[in-house]
């Protein structure tokens, strides 16, 4: 209510010409009462939870304790809030807190997964030759001081290169079809691309196994794995590229047409260069997804313990496949190696991810790109005047 009166007061003094009076009212979402209510409710819930778990009810278990604490916390918070605010405000506040915890939980989960793998992987990775050695001289009982992921790194890089080389041109061309040609015929294509982004990864492997390996006669190899990865990456690249192409301003296209450009020249010289950084982001994100796929590779790459540089001949291991194999061994040293492989995999993905963020500045085609272009244009203008 106080906010309402403030708002009506502000314009009354505004026309007098005093700029200070015209300052917009700052509504503070965080207040002392709010924080104290949350803190009090949290403490009360903790105490009540402890009494319930340790004294009253026969409950046990750490996770159960915290789940109960959270439910009690929400109830306490609603109760304490009801002393101060009306029903609608209470509901609003409880929902706000519940949604904020969900965001916090997601953050904690991602940090936990990445952190846990990296920390446990550190035991193996501490020895830098882990990244260059292969498993060819490492027996099932060898200590952690032997063996490494070198051969798996080679396999991953070769396979993802093959998959990218195949899926990116096709994916971007398909995205151009959806964004530039369009029409009613494009609608089923878009629907199917959306549907195929959630294609079960094992199906891609099974398909290449049935088609390429058993029908065409291609041997199980890194190339077959690259083909399977290309099948899983194609819809992802198409989908992401289409989103980027759609935000290329229509005025640019119209300007190109007005200058007499044909459609293909417009696309090649205006649309694609404009969307370049966003497309790069789409490609890199697709690669990040492809690098981590296990199931397609599992079925068609075979498995090798040593280096195999030739993707067209002989079995090849990739990082996820290496982890999958090591983790199924009962030996602790193998588990440590699996986490070492996880370390390498997460490092690769984080590098790709950072590149994608740098290139596209967030979700493909958000404001930053235009801002960057604007800055470049200003710099160019400045350079010209200086000369």
């Amino acid at each position: 209510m106080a906010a309402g009166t403030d708002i009506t007061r502000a314009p009354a003094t505004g026309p007098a010409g005093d700029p200070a009076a015209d300052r917009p009212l700052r509504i503070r979402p965080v207040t002392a009462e709010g924080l104290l209510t949350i803190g009090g409710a949290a403490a009360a819930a903790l105490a009540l939870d402890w009494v319930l778990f340790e004294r009253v009810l026969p409950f046990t278990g750490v996770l159960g304790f915290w789940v109960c604490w959270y439910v009690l916390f929400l109830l306490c918070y609603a109760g304490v809030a009801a002393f101060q605010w009306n029903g609608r405000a209470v509901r609003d506040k409880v929902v706000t807190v519940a949604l904020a915890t969900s965001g916090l939980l997601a953050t904690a989960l991602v940090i936990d997964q990445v952190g846990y793998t990296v920390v446990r992987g550190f035991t193996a990775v501490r020895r830098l030759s882990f990244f260059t050695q292969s498993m060819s001289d490492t027996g099932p009982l060898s200590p952690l001081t032997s063996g490494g992921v070198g051969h798996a790194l080679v396999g991953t890089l070769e396979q993802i290169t093959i998959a990218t080389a195949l899926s990116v041109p096709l994916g971007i061309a398909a995205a151009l079809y959806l964004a530039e040609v369009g029409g009613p015929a494009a609608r089923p294509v878009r629907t199917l691309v959306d549907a195929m982004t959630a294609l079960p990864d094992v199906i891609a492997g099974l398909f290449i196994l049935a088609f390429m390996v058993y029908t065409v006669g291609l041997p199980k190899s890194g190339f077959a794995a690259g083909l399977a990865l290309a099948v899983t990456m194609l819809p992802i690249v198409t989908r992401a590229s289409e989103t980027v192409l759609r935000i290329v301003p229509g005025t640019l296209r119209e300007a190109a047409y007005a200058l007499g450009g044909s459609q293909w020249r417009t696309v090649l010289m205006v649309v694609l260069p404009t969307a370049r950084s966003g497309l790069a982001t789409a490609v890199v994100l697709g690669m990040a997804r492809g690098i981590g796929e296990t199931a397609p590779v599992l079925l068609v790459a075979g498995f090798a313990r040593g280096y195999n540089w030739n993707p067209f001949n002989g079995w090849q291991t990739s990082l996820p496949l290496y982890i999958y194999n090591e983790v199924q061994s009962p030996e602790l040293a193998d588990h440590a190696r699996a986490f070492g492989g996880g370390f390498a995999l997460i490092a690769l993905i984080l590098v790709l991810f950072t590149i994608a963020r740098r290139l596209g500045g967030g979700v493909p085609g958000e404001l930053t790109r235009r801002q960057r272009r604007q800055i470049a244009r200003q710099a160019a203008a400045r350079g010209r005047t200086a000369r």
Partner: protein
Amino acid sequence: MAMSAHRPAPASPPVDEDTPRTIVARPSTGDRIFRAVLRGSGWSVFVITGLILVFLILRSAKAFKFMGLGFLTTQTWVIYNPQHFGIAAILPLGILIALIAMIIAVPAGIAIALYISEYSPLALRRPLVALIDLMAAIPSIIFGLWGLFFLEPRILGFDSWLGRHLGFIPFFRFRLSTSVESNYATSTFIAGVVVSLMVIPIVTSLSRQVFSQAPAGEREGAYALGATRWGMVRAVVLPFGRGGVIGACMLGLGRALGETIAVTLIIAPVFHFNFHVLETGGNSIASSIALDYSSFPDAGSMGLSALMAAGLVLFGMTLIVNTLGAIVIGRSRSGLATG
């Protein structure tokens, strides 16, 4: 809405007199070739889907011929001699994992999406979106490692808590000895929890996109009528985003049904259907394929054909679910930004 429907009516009589000339665009040869190439690339997605179907059907024919309708009703999965196999156990067990995943992931995903698009401070919004993108890019093998080594030892206590105090719910009934901790391990429930974490980013990112497109005018209208933020979300954002959220959930379900490696690492495969989700053992079509594929180097073998048949069922099921989801999303999207 009503305004825009009425506005053209008074203006139409004068407009009728100068109907614009219809423009017939005649694309040049270069353009025609260009468009044909693009069209071919676009339709290649159909070609690939078709090829997948054709080859799975070709390769699975032998198994279907051998088992007939029994393929759908047999629970055992013996693909060595004497062969007797069917998907009556592994299909529903896999669906159970997906359902548990959806029960957790849908509320969580929508909550995170609402938090990011409606509640989070502006400075946090981009990092959170990046975080969800990163969560989507974390490979399933890492989820599997995390689930096996980090989550499983910690969730066993919660499992037994559920089993002892919520055991009156049939799904949570626990018939094995509760004092043996490993009776809770490798269960459908744990696999479902891990898969749910892989579905959350899909539900979140698609829902968030729809939520953020809710029209600003209607939001402000709700606030002007005195709604709290939650009141505005309930009255404007959620109804607006309903279609998108349903589609997002269906795509998430498709992902959950097909998840392979994380499930394979966590469950201990069983071949009889058991809906008591806390008890040890579970299965899914995808993980059966991943576990058994290596036993059949021979292209014509019955075992391989059985795997292809199971794969065909999985592919058909996820394709239907995903396509429905994509149609729902497409519909909610076409009403919004682009024509």
